[in-house]
C-alpha cells in the first residue's frame, strides 16, 4: 500500500511516541538511579545532572547483590528445567496417547493456575517447615516448577500436536523405544517450542514475588526479596531504590530483549500462523 508522506511521518511519530511512553518509567528509573538522593527528589525533576555511582555503591554495601542475583539465576533455571523435565513426558503422553479424558485433564490443570497462591500458602508453609525446606534454594525450585507446570505442559502439548504422527510411527517401525522416540525424534523436532517454553518459564520464575517473599528470608532469597528489603524502610530514598530496582531488572530485561523473537513463537502456541 502506498502511503502519502504525511501519513508516514504521522505513523513514525505515533509509533515512537507510544514506544517511548511505555518505556518511560523504566528510563526514569535508570535515570534516577544515577542521581544523588537530593537530586532525585528535587522539584521540578532534574533532567540534566552530573551522574553518580554512589547509590549503586551504597546498595551493594547494604546487601550483597551478587548473592541475591545468583540465587535468582539458580532458582529460575532450576525451576524451569525441573518443570520441563516433568512436562515433556506428560505432554508427550497427552499428545500422542490421548484418552477421552485428556482434554479435560489439560483444562483442569490450567484452571489450577488461576487460583491465588495464597489459597494454599498456609499448608505449603507448614509442609515446608516440617520438611526443612524453608529458605532453601531447592524448596523454591520445587515451588516454581510446580507453579509453572500447567502452562509449560499446555505449551508443549500444542507444539507436540503439530508433529505429524507419521514421523513417530516411522521411528517406531525402525525399532525406536518410547524413550529414544522422545529424545531423538520429538525433542529435536520441537526444540524451538521447548526453548521458548523454557524462556517464558524463566521470566515468570525470575519475577515471581509471592512465594519467594513468604518462603525465604536470607540464605536462598532471590532478587525479588532483595527489592522488597529496599521498599519499605527505604521508601523515600528514591535514588537507592532506583539503583536496586535497576540491577534487579537489568539481567532479565536484557535477556528478554535478546530472546523476544523466540519468546513470541512460544507464546502464541502456534495459534497464529
Amino acid at each position, binding site marked *: 500500500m502506498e502511503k502519502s508522506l504525511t501519513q508516514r511521518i504521522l*505513523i513514525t511519530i505515533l509509533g515512537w511516541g507510544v514506544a517511548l511512553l511505555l518505556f518511560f518509567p523504566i528510563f526514569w*528509573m535508570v535515570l534516577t538511579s544515577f542521581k544523588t538522593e537530593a537530586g532525585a527528589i528535587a522539584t521540578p525533576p532534574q533532567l540534566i545532572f552530573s551522574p553518580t555511582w554512589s547509590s549503586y555503591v551504597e546498595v551493594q554495601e547494604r546487601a550483597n547483590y551478587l548473592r541475591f542475583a545468583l540465587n535468582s539465576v539458580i532458582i529460575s533455571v532450576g525451576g524451569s528445567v525441573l518443570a520441563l523435565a516433568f512436562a515433556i513426558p506428560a505432554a508427550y503422553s497427552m499428545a500422542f496417547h490421548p484418552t477421552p479424558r485428556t482434554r479435560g485433564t489439560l483444562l483442569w490443570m490450567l484452571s489450577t493456575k*488461576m487460583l491465588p497462591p495464597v*489459597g494454599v500458602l498456609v*499448608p505449603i508453609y507448614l509442609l515446608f517447615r516440617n520438611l526443612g525446606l524453608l529458605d532453601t534454594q531447592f524448596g523454591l525450585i520445587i515451588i516454581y516448577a510446580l507453579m509453572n507446570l500447567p502452562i509449560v505442559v499446555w505449551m508443549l502439548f500444542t507444539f507436540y500436536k503439530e508433529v505429524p504422527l507419521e514421523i513417530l510411527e516411522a521411528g517406531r517401525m525402525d525399532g525406536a523405544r518410547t524413550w529414544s522416540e522422545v529424545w531423538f525424534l520429538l525433542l529435536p523436532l520441537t526444540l524451538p517450542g521447548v526453548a521458548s517454553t523454557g524462556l517464558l518459564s524463566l521470566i515468570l520464575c525470575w519475577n515471581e514475588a509471592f512465594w519467594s517473599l513468604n518462603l525465604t528470608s536470607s540464605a536462598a532469597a532471590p532478587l525479588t526479596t532483595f527489592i522488597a528489603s529496599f521498599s519499605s524502610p527505604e521508601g523515600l530514598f528514591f535514588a537507592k531504590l532506583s539503583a536496586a530496582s535497576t540491577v534487579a531488572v537489568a539481567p532479565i530485561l536484557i535477556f528478554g530483549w535478546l530472546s523476544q523473537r523466540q519468546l513470541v513463537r512460544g507464546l502464541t502456541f502456534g*495459534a*497464529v500462523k
Partner: protein
Amino acid sequence: MAVLLLWMIVPLVMTVWFSFQRYNLLDPSADAFAGIDNYVFLVTDPDFWVSLTNTLILLASVLAITVGLGTLLAVLFDQDFPGRGIARVLAISPFFVMPTVAALIWKNLMMHPIYGVFGAIARAFGLEPVDWFAEYPMASVIAIVSWEWLPFALLILLTAVQSLDHEQREAARMDGAGVFAQFFFITLPHLSRAISVVIMIETIFLLTVFAEIFVTTSGGPGNATTNLAFLIYARALLQFDVGGASAGGVVAILLANIVAFFLVRSIARRLEV
C-alpha cells in the same frame, strides 16, 4: 504422575481441612472443629464481598485496556516506519519488569504527589498534583497492572497481525473498504484466536494479582483495593487466622474454577485444544 498429583492434592486437602477448623496461630489452645463457622464468618464479612468485586473489576478493566489498546498498537507497529525494531523492543520492555519493581517505580517515581513525574507535569500546567493512590486507588492499580500486561498483548497480537494476508486487505481496499471497514471486517476476525490466547493467559495471572497491591496500597485505603488474594494474605499472615484464610482460599479456588469454566467453554473451542 502420582507424585505430581500428590503435590497438587495435598495442599488442597489441607486447605479444605483447615477451612473447617478454628485455627489461629496466636491462640493454639482454641483449635477445634468449627464446622462452617469460617464460611459463615466470611460471607457475612463485608470485606469479603468488596474484595470479590475488586478482583473482578481489576480483571475486567485490565483485560479491556490491554486487549483494546494492544490491538490498536499491534496495527500501528505493523506499519513500516524508521526504527520500528527498536521502538518495538522499547514498547514490550515493561513485560520483563518484575511486578514488585513496576509497582515501586510507579508508586514513588511516577505517581508520588510531591516528587513524582505526574505531579511535576501537573504543576507545570499550573494544576494541583493528584495523590493517585489516595484519591483513585483502584484506577492506579489498574494502570500499573495494565502497563505490565499491555506489552504482552501487543507482542502476541502483533505476531498475529503480521501473519495477516496483505493481499486480502488489498483486495478489500480495491472493493472500496475504508480503513475502519478493513480493520473491523478483516483484521479483527483474523485476530480472534490471538485475542483468545491473550485473554486466557492474562486471566490466569490477573486473578492472582498480589505484588502490585502489596507494594502500593496494601489493599487500602480502607479496603478499596483489597482483592481476594490480598484478603487471604491479610487473614493468614497479618491476623494469623488460618481457618478463616483457608476458607477464603477455598472460595478463591471456587471462583477460579467458575471463571475457568466460562473461559474454557468460550475460548478452548477456538484454540482447538
